[in-house]
């Protein structure tokens, strides 16, 4: 269990790190395209997000999202060992 928690923590940190350092998102490039294609008529957006996290907080929350999913997957994979069909071994 300790090893699983350690792996989750490492994954959490890794995803946060990766999300902080990747280049511009495809969405950012789409924004530029919209402005270009419509001669700036259709832009900027008509409403702002309710809350705009800083890039660091955003990376952290992406990591949290991954961690929630990983905990569920790890739980299933852990139980899988108990229920595995003997015919496969």
């Amino acid at each position, binding site marked *: 269990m300790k090893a699983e928690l350690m792996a989750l923590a490492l994954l959490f940190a890794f995803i946060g790190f990766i999300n902080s350092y990747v280049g511009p998102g*495809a969405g950012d490039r*789409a924004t530029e395209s919209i402005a270009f*294609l419509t*001669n700036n008529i259709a832009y*900027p*957006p008509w409403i702002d997000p309710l*809350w705009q996290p800083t890039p660091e907080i955003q990376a952290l929350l992406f990591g949290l999202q991954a961690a929630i999913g990983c905990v*569920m997957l790890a739980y299933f994979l852990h139980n899988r060992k108990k229920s595995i069909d003997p015919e496969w071994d």
Partner: protein
Amino acid sequence: MHIMEGFLPHPWWEIWFALSLPVVVYGAYNINRLIKEQREALPLLAVAGAFVFVLSSLKLPSVTGSCSHPTGTGMGAILFGPGMTSVLATIVLVYQAFFLAHGGLTTLGANVFSMGIAGPFVGYLIYKASMRSGLNLYAAVFLAATMADFATYIVTSIQLALAFPASSGGALASLKAFAAIFAVTQIPLAIVEGVVTALMFKYILQARSDVLVRLKVVSPKALSDIKEATV
């Protein structure tokens, strides 16, 4: 990437909401039925949801210099069909819209349609067609997950092209521009998603092949063929 908050003007954001809502309601109804009638399949539903949670959090750099993320919806589509997968995708998209300002509440309908309905629907059809044609099970899963991911971003390009037709060339010119951004960025990520999904599917098959047969994901004959090939 999802369409950001406020990107889609009136009437497009309302149209995508109207198209997505019935499918999500139908999916929720089916989940409710699954809970009552096939409780043994619930861990797999949780796995399909967790898969969407993990994969859609992975922002990865791609060949075009921009980054994007896989969707993870192919697994849900194969196991439970596009209806229930739309509910799983909606949960993830609401989380991302509220807490990450990734996607948006006004564009939720459009994002649910592309990631939760259109992509999984394509994946589901490809999986069923591949199984009928006698393709190897894992190849079918790979193909379905890859195409579910890729189709998601093709539909996103179409949604943006319809909302923002180019001053010269109209919606078709816009579609080319958006597809060049979204679809090309997505090709390597879609392939990675296909491989990861096939690997995960192998684990699920080994652990709960009985449930997969009951859900009609795998036929008993296909299952015995795979078991014979592995022994």
